[in-house]
């Protein structure tokens, strides 16, 4: 009967979605980044997770050439005035048009120690706000461009929502936000909860201690780079071409955890 056919079709939608997500995981689809000219710019999103997360994030972005990364959007959690103060102090040291600096305030998705049900409810609220500001509104303005081209995150919880929303464009095949996750310097032998959740879904996942993602999980900058291929695992050396300055960080490592030393 037609109803049965309909039910089967509807029932298969989640499967198809799961397949699509699986196929576009950074581990499987390593679309190279678009090449940019020296004088081009790149829009940047920076998540400020409060407290130590924000302090580490500002230490990280202070190493960037901010004339390249503009406009910039800082995402903080509602009520986190400390992060706003720190980032304002940071931005006051930058040159460039202040109109290119944006702030987005998100309701907090999860407070430390919050239960599962209430995390789910507050997460939905965060999701609504994030959907509008980081997906729908940018889509209505200019469907060809994602909200930001590169997003930097380092936890905690609320940034999971940002990644989930950023994935919509990836799933439907539009140009998408590339995401870099930097695990905290404080994580020596285990990942944070948001790190564990997000590891397969970000383009670059960096730890600052070699065993933070578990023993033997991280790809070292100076060691052979294990690369999964269709027929199994093959080893290929990280390029050491002296003429190419960028070769020490072999890109991309396709969903693998990277350890590059201390970044902050």
């Amino acid at each position, binding site marked *: 009967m037609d109803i049965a056919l309909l039910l089967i079709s509807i029932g298969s939608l989640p499967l198809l979605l799961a397949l699509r997500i699986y196929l576009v995981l950074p581990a499987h689809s390593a679309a190279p*980044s678009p090449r940019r000219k020296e004088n081009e710019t790149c829009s940047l999103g920076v998540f400020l997770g409060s407290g130590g997360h924000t302090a580490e994030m500002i230490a990280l972005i202070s190493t960037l050439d901010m004339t*390249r990364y503009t406009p910039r959007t800082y995402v903080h959690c509602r009520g986190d005035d400390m992060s706003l103060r720190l980032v304002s102090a940071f931005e006051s040291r930058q040159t460039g048009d202040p109109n290119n600096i944006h702030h987005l305030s998100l309701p907090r998705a999860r407070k430390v120690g919050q239960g599962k049900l209430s995390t789910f409810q507050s997460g939905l609220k965060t999701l609504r706000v994030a959907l509008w500001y980081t997906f729908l509104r940018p889509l209505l303005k200019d469907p060809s461009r994602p909200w930001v081209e590169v997003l930097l995150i380092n936890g905690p919880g609320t940034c999971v929502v940002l990644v989930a929303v950023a994935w919509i464009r990836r799933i439907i095949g539009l140009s998408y936000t*590339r995401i870099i996750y930097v695990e905290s310097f404080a994580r*020596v032998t285990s990942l944070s909860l948001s790190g564990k959740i997000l590891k397969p879904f970000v383009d670059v996942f960096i730890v600052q201690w070699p065993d933070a993602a578990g023993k033997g999980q991280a790809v070292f900058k100076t060691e052979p780079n294990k690369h999964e291929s269709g027929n199994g695992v093959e080893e290929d050396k990280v390029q050491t071409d002296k003429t190419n300055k960028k070769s020490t960080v072999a890109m991309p490592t396709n969903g693998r955890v990277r350890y590059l030393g201390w*970044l902050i």
Partner: protein
Amino acid sequence: MSTKPSSSDPTSLLITVGSTLFPELTSAVLTRAFARILVDAGIKRLVVQYGKAKLPWELIMRLDLAVDALGQAERTVRPFDSDDGEDEREIHFQVKRFVDDFDGVVASVDAVISHAGSGSIMTALRNGKKLLVVPNTSLMDNHQAELADVLNAQGYLTVSSVDELYKAVPGWLALQDRLREFPQQDPTIFRRVVDEVAGF
């Protein structure tokens, strides 16, 4: 910014718990007994940044601290002073709930006792300060203690506990330049990663 641990004997000390609640530490150090230990060790100025903790009542009463609306107070006290005693050695107490210019406060002291937060640890070490870390063992997911332990094993800092603090502090303050110099940030690593991802 100095990168070497100070070679002379420390005379000023910062105790910091960042934005956390760590009453076991803040209560242990805001006492007359601890002030005596510090005075004996040559400390003349103490700054305590106590975060979300309540100031111990004993301190407010015995030291007669007047705490303002921002949770700040300062006073010079003679911790050995008693009815029959003649010991007039002093220590200047400054308590603050939070500090805006943390880097500046760290730079202004000779030594730091800190909770195990990575931010506080980095700031103290990058400023070349002698550092004693007291991890908060009441935290559920105590990954912070791991950071303190690994940096201790690598020779950058000393680790103690609230229970051992009174015993550990004089020896730690007397340590001479045995700690390893902490590396400054390498600004090229993260920049290269982001530039690569962005396509520069």
